[in-house]
């Protein structure tokens, strides 16, 4: 039974990460069209017809999904990726070439394992913790997986066997290393505030009220930390104003220049999973997770957990949309600006934030 519960949890968590990633894909395709005043994907499935009586009721739904571009982005694109030629550049190690996209995706999916998706609840006599691995130091695990994901990019750039890939990989490695530091320091400040490394306990710490009326959310207690983490996290996902590693005007496509077919799509999946992971982190650490301010739900009831999950996912989708809007709004940085911002702006601010937090924690 224990094993069964664990397997169900693994299944649910994997699906949450994949569904969020595909939702981000759709938001990106259709959202970018909206922002750029285009129409976007609206053909595949929009004019579907059938004479079978049992398909008749489903037709309006399929047509609506086709019209909104859902079928195009989620089905047609991935099928196209599967059928395309899988090209391996000459002189590259076949094994490493295949390994790189896997390493780009796998750590991000693993990081979801330690993040809680709903409050604990009891069902049929079992207390269920809606996260796969309840290790202490869960926050550090997320950071560790983020730093392992760099290898996917580095190996991809190296096996590409050309200068554009290599330059993109070097840029990506330098960028991700630089922005990991302020990110880690913000995590340390949060750990100081809530006195725990466990993400679940941090979320529980945010359910209280400060002076009786302000919710003790991370954004209230760590506003500077939130801004630093938002910037550092967007740089970690290598997207938008920070997409120097794949700057198409300079590097063709950066580290995945030589990738095609499903391997290419895996890099995109990793990127969108990273967006979802980062949105989940922001919602859990800074916006109270499943907390609705001034509303107390009963502990342990399954319907309360369900409401909590829906509230959390609403916050997550909000942050996914925010990241996509930022990505399609701001122009790309120059490389020296990127490095200056990481080392001369974010790092000192994060350090000062940590020192001030520690002093306040001891003084109060």
């Amino acid at each position: 039974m224990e094993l069964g519960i664990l397997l169900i949890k693994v299944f649910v968590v994997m699906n949450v990460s994949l569904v969020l990633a595909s939702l981000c894909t759709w938001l990106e395709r259709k959202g970018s069209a909206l922002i750029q005043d285009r129409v976007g994907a609206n053909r595949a499935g929009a004019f579907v017809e059938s004479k079978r009586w049992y398909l008749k009721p489903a037709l309006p739904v399929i047509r609506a999904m086709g019209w909104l571009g859902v079928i195009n982005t989620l089905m047609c694109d991935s099928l196209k990726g599967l059928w395309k030629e899988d090209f391996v550049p000459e002189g590259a190690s076949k094994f490493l070439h295949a390994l790189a996209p896997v390493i780009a995706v796998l750590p991000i999916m693993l990081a979801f394992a330690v993040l809680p998706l709903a409050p604990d609840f009891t069902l049929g006599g079992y207390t269920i913790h809606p996260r796969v691995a309840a290790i202490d130091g869960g926050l550090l695990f997320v950071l560790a997986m983020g730093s392992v994901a760099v290898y996917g990019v580095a190996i991809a750039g190296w096996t590409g066997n050309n200068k554009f890939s290599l330059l993109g990989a070097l840029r990506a490695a330098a960028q991700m290393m630089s922005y990991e530091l302020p990110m880690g320091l913000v995590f340390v400040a949060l750990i100081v505030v809530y006195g725990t490394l466990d993400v679940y306990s941090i979320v529980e710490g945010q359910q209280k009220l400060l002076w009786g009326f302000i919710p003790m959310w991370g954004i209230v207690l760590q506003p500077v930390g939130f801004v630093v983490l938002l910037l550092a996290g967007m740089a970690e996902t290598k997207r938008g104003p920070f997409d120097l590693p794949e700057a198409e005007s300079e590097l063709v496509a950066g580290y995945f220049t030589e990738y095609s077919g499903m391997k290419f799509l895996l890099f995109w999946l990793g990127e969108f999973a990273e967006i979802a992971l980062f949105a989940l982190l922001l919602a859990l650490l800074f916006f109270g997770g499943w907390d609705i301010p001034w509303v107390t739900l009963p502990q342990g009831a399954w319907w309360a957990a369900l409401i909590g999950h829906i509230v959390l996912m609403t916050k997550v989708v909000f942050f996914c949309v925010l990241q996509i809007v930022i990505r399609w709004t701001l122009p790309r940085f120059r490389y020296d600006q990127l490095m200056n911002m990481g080392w001369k702006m974010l790092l000192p601010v994060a350090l000062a934030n940590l020192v001030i937090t520690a002093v306040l924690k001891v003084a109060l």
Partner: protein
Amino acid sequence: MSFMGFVLSAVAVASALGVVFNRNPLYSAFHLIVNLLAMAGVYSVLDAHFLAVTQVVVYAGAIMVLVLFVLMLLNLKAGSGRKLGIFRPLCAIAVACSVVTTVYPAVESNFKDLSLHELQEKAWRSEGTVKAVGEELYGRYVRQFELSSLVLLIGIVGAVTLSKRKEGKIGPREGGLGGGK
């Protein structure tokens, strides 16, 4: 140790051999990454989750990325290193022997009367390993901890001093976000 522990140990040993016997330095670095990750796995099988995660963050995540970065920047070809004489392998064996003879008695004397099971029990009782590690580091070993951080600080200052450019030479382009100087 469980079955997983033995598998991970075997992976660690095999990848360590791979580090030594590969002609291409980049492949050696990849093997070292596998080795460090396998060691992290062994720690986590022994319920030392904090140590495992720290191993991944620091060694696999930061130091090895730098090593890989430098190797990729130099773009070395396979087997471009010098031929090994008899002197270097002898040196390596001597160093390995001295490390083992120094570390092994210390490990044995500390954990002789404790079985692995008892160690795990201890770790669980102290409310997770993070708290246990913290209490040891900032309690019993606080002087050693502070001294080693001082050594690291000296290392950082030394690295900055060595890599600092002389004034007047061509530096990186100014005028970034902070407006340069």
